[in-house]
């Protein structure tokens, strides 16, 4: 079920080597990691529906938040709420074959002058939505409606399963600043995989 391709795998391997090297020189890093912002996401409900030959995903994800998260957002930190979806075909005695894997990345930030939480959603054609409260923003982010993930022609004859996982992480930095995050593993919280059979 976990045989899906992940983006950024090479970077992770390099990071692992770096950590091994750091361990070899017996350096004990202190406070090198970003502080935990808490709140593991949980997939409450998810299903796909076949509409006009297109499989559309609908999901309800609970992104909990606390004061620390709100404070971090108010300090200018951006959070990325990602949804990974993969459709896999089960194989005996071997890893599952992947039919398709798609990601949905939504970004939450806080606008300090307007004092509103801004959500950037690619499903919303990139137009940011702003909310007066964090709860409203998270509710919006946690709702996926009619997201096309697969056309029926791609689906093989065998039985397939849909796997969904959501994660929250610190928004990726840009430019040269990103390289320093090598030493600071991004704050990352992931839900368990939520899987179900692909309906025909």
């Amino acid at each position, binding site marked *: 079920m976990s045989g899906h391709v992940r983006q950024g795998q090479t970077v992770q391997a390099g990071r692992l080597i770096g950590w091994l090297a750091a361990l070899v020189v017996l350096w004990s890093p202190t406070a090198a990691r970003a502080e935990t912002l808490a709140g593991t996401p949980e997939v409450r409900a998810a299903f796909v529906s076949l509409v006009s030959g297109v499989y559309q995903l609908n999901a309800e994800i609970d992104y909990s938040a606390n004061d620390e998260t709100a404070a971090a957002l108010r300090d200018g*930190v951006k959070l990325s709420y990602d949804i990974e979806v993969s459709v896999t075909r089960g194989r005996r005695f071997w890893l599952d074959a992947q039919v398709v894997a798609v990601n949905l990345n939504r970004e939450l930030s806080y606008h300090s*002058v307007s004092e509103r939480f801004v959500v950037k959603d690619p499903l919303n054609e*990139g137009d940011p939505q702003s909310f007066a409260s964090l709860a409203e923003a998270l509710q919006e982010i946690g709702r996926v409606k009619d997201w096309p993930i697969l056309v029926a022609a791609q689906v093989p004859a065998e039985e397939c399963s849909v796997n969904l996982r959501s994660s929250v992480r610190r928004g990726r930095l840009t430019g040269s600043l990103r390289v320093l995050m090598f030493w600071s593993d991004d704050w990352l919280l992931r839900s368990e995989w939520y899987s179900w059979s692909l309906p025909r």
Partner: protein
Amino acid sequence: MVAATITTRRTVGLLALGALAVIFALVGLSVSAENSAQFERLQPWMLLGSALAVLFLALLILRKVLQLAAARRRGAPGSRLTIRTVTVFGLLVALPLVTVYLFSLGFLNRGIDSWFRVEVKQSLNDSASLSRGMRDLLLREHGSMAESFARRLAVLPSGEMLVALDDELEFSGAKEIVVYGQYERILGAASRSVPDSLPSRPPAELVRRVTDGGTFVSFEPLGGDNFVIRAAAPVSMAAPGPLDARFVVATYDPPSRFAELTEAIDRSRSTYADVEALREPLKYSFRVTLTLVLLITMLAAIYGAIHAAEVLFRPVQDLMAGTRAVAQGDLVTRVPLTSSDEMGFLVQAFNDMTRKLRLASEENAASRMAAERERERLAVILARLSSGVLAVDQSLVLQLANEAAGLILGADLSAQTGRPLGEVVAGDDRPRQFAALLAERFAGGATEWRGQIELVGDGSTQSRVLACACVPLPQDGQPVFVIVFEDITRLLQAQRDAAWGEVARRLAHEIRNPLTPIQLSAERMRRRLLPSLRGPDAEMLDRSTHTIVQQVESMKQMVNDFSEYARAPALRSAPFDLNQLVIEVADLYHAQEPAIPVETVLDPRLIGFSADRGRVRQVLNNLLTNALEALDGHRPAAIEVRTSIIDTGGVERAQITVSDNGPGFPPELLGRVFDPYVTSKPKGTGLGLAIVKKIVDDHGGSIEAENRPEGGARVRVMLPFNPDGREQAAGERRSEVRRERA
């Protein structure tokens, strides 16, 4: 040699590889730290390479340290010096590096912390607050406008609403004004642009607010520099109908400059937050890089220090090894000359010194060997010397003794060196007597003297006469005296024998001649005068002539004995059974004196014994006669005759031992019992044992007389087994006598 070359090449190769890795790691760290574009790609590999370089250097140093420790344990020359130097070098390298490292770390932390100054964040927050103030002003203004318009709508007839909307749009500068009725139904709207769709539903929060009778205003970001001000106000009517307006929502564009600054402030805050989050990773990155550089530099320096110390002290180690070898006596060793500097000069000087030492040692060894040869030669001479040679100090502690000295004094002196001569344990007290006599001489102040010393027998042994000469040795410290002495007992005995022989010959010659005329005259006188005399005269003549004849006969017997003693008839040696002869003589004497048992103990190996049988018989006769006379009146009496074979100096001799249990020899006569006219018996001429000794001497044998410890006398006769042995013994005797005379 080949293996050593391969090992050296492998070591050089490893070192070159390690140096390349270290250089690569350092350059890589430097490049990756400077070039952020390369950082993410290179950093893991650089770190791994640097860690491997550190590990490689640590292993090299560990190997060297273990080698040094092993060398120290086995006490290799120079190991302690090398360890001390490496420790000092290491400290000299490590202390500054660690100091600079710690200072750098502190500087780094302070430097990076200074980048994130509180004032920056505060100014950003202040800017945001200022912007929010401006925003609030705008919101209040636009909220008032919305409220005013709502109030106007409340009193306005419904047919004029659209006109009023257009007027308000024009008057207020709004982008769009929408009037909502019951259930949020749009009753009317005015917009500056031609709408391509209906206005979107009002946000829930807005609806809640105006439903509650409040005014809603918001400043909403739309992405980038785009913002919108949304203002909503309820339309208050006393009794609103289903088609009456319930609230109005107006949207405005904020001033463009305000919008730009607002976005800039927000972007700056966001960027600062990102950068601030990187503060610790930034420090950590620099710390790791700095630590790796420190470790690589320090380990490389320490390894270099160890290598330099080894190279530096190798000549010293060679010198120490050479010194140790020289101390252990190896003067052939040479220290390899590896340089021409001061160390090379030292090595050269050491080699020169070793060479000179070797030459001196060789000369010394040659001298020692010559002295040793001389000593051995002297020892051989001393060993072969028949004279006894002793070296003693003033307290008569024995320093040296040859074999002959031991034989003469009757003690083994070879192991007695260092002991006082008087304490030497021997079969008799000859060494003690000798020491006492020497002490007397030394006490008298005589250091160089010549003289005779008589060692008196103790009853069981004969007295010995020694001719001694004492010479002080030229020596530092306590004086040492060399005493050369000779046993001249035999010489004196031979001189006495010769004198007695001459006396006997003269007696025989001078007395025998007048005896016959005396006897003839006495017999003629008796024959002529006795018939003519009567009475007392005839009796007196008869008695006198008889006495004369008897005494003359007696004197003749005595002269014959002397003649027998003096004459030296040629020996007629022939093989015979000595045991048989002993049995015959013993039986004869036993028959003569049945009360005295004569026991014989015979050695059956006595086969091939050759001598003059008649004279040997006379020896046995004389010895048994002597024993019988000694046992006269002594009961119980017993005589034992024993034969045996003894080995004296590689020559086999037949030994005849005649023992009795009589009173033994008087101790004062023990040394002279074989002299003529020496006897303790009232009867006898005293020539019996003298004749025995003469016969034994003629046969080349020897004779000894002693008293048995259990009582009685014992005479031992030792005869050569055959004429060859006799010749050999006679030769020894002659040479011995010659030496004694010399």
